[in-house]
């Protein structure tokens, strides 16, 4: 019974959100984003360099993933 209530409430909440009845207003206005648009705030300024460093690490560590793209090949040697 409790599970059914949760499901009904979730469905209602989802419908309200999807229909735009609860639109979120941006709290950082577009004209306040000059600092965020500065290249020093980019997640990845140089994707080729990042992919190269990821490839070096993945060839020598057990961990992998969740950092962005990495190159192919085995790094077997």
């Amino acid at each position, binding site marked *: 019974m409790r599970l059914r209530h949760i499901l009904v409430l979730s469905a209602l909440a989802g419908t309200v959100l999807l229909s735009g009845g609860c639109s979120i207003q941006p709290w950082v206005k577009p004209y306040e984003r000059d600092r965020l648009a500065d290249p020093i705030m980019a997640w990845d300024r140089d994707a080729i360099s990042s992919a190269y460093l990821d490839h070096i690490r993945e060839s020598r560590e*057990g*961990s992998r993933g969740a950092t962005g793209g990495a190159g192919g090949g085995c790094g077997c040697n």
Partner: protein
Amino acid sequence: MTHRQLLARAAIITALLLIRSTNADVLPDNRADVFYSKYSGGGMDITGYSATARAKVTENFALEANYFIDKVSGASVDVLSQASVIKDERKQKSGTLEYLHDKTTYTASYMTSAERDYISDTASLALSQTMFGDLTTISLGFSNTHNKVGINNGTADKPNVAWVGHALTKAYSAGLSQIITKNFIAGLNLQVITDAGYLANPYRSIRYLDGSAKGYSLASQMYPETHTSTAIQVQAKYYLPYRASVTGVYRYFNDTWGVKGNTYELDYTHPISNKWIFEGRARFYKQSAATFYSDLFPFAASQNFTARDQNLAALDNTTIGGKVTYAFLPDGWRIFKRGTVTADVSRIRFNYLDFRDIKDFGPPQYKPGAEPLYQFSAMVYQAYVSIYF
């Protein structure tokens, strides 16, 4: 603030307002890069060259192509201990299509990488969508890789490659980037990767105790044929009270082989005028060993799965690096919007906690299992020229 900085800031604000007035996103600028890299450490030297070009065909459609070539000489310690010196070349080509529709960017790419003894093909699909007044960007991705794994039983000059197996890899990723304040942005990435097939490195061996003169012998590794890993990364970037930014990154990793990894990274980026950007980074990584890893097994075939691959050992490494970007065309020239040259240097110190150096140390001075632990330092150099147009 100089007159030029004020102009640059005014241009950025104007561009943002123009973007917003169309109520849709834009694809990044056209860009071309030539790239040089060198890795040197642990008995290996790898020199890489790369060229990349990216161009918008229309406002909604962009193409990117990359060519990368790596030249390898030498070999890592566990390969060298078998007295085979490696010389090889890896060529990687990739192509990417990007399509922007309103606030959604769709990306399809294909990459192929070929070495004498390893061929890898990857197809990827991804999408990213901005929402909630462009404060939030979500991304989803999937890639499918086929690897063909071989071993060179010949020499560097007269190769004799035997193909030993195939491996299939599927990667699923999801990401979230969130503007928190006008100075602060945070991100979350999740990636699950599954592999099936031949997953061992054919050049590396286990060692086990026996009655030989050395006290041990070598044998092939036996890996499971499946592997699933999960990695979660959180990152945050903050614009300091003066024009500079600081980035913090943490990643947690675990897999079905028992490896658990933690990565911590801190970056500081400091521009000077619109010509120079200086960046410093420190990274620390630590992992536990795989459950079937051992530096020295008690006897041959002592368990179903066996590994002595240094990547699966307990280890830590520390990276200190710096990067300098100089804009030789800070304000553009004719069709070029900007041109930069970048130099990047990193030093990585690797410490192995249960992987011993059997290349340089052995009997009679050191009994099997009593050799010093392996450690080495590597230098990574990168230099590249980037043109935006």
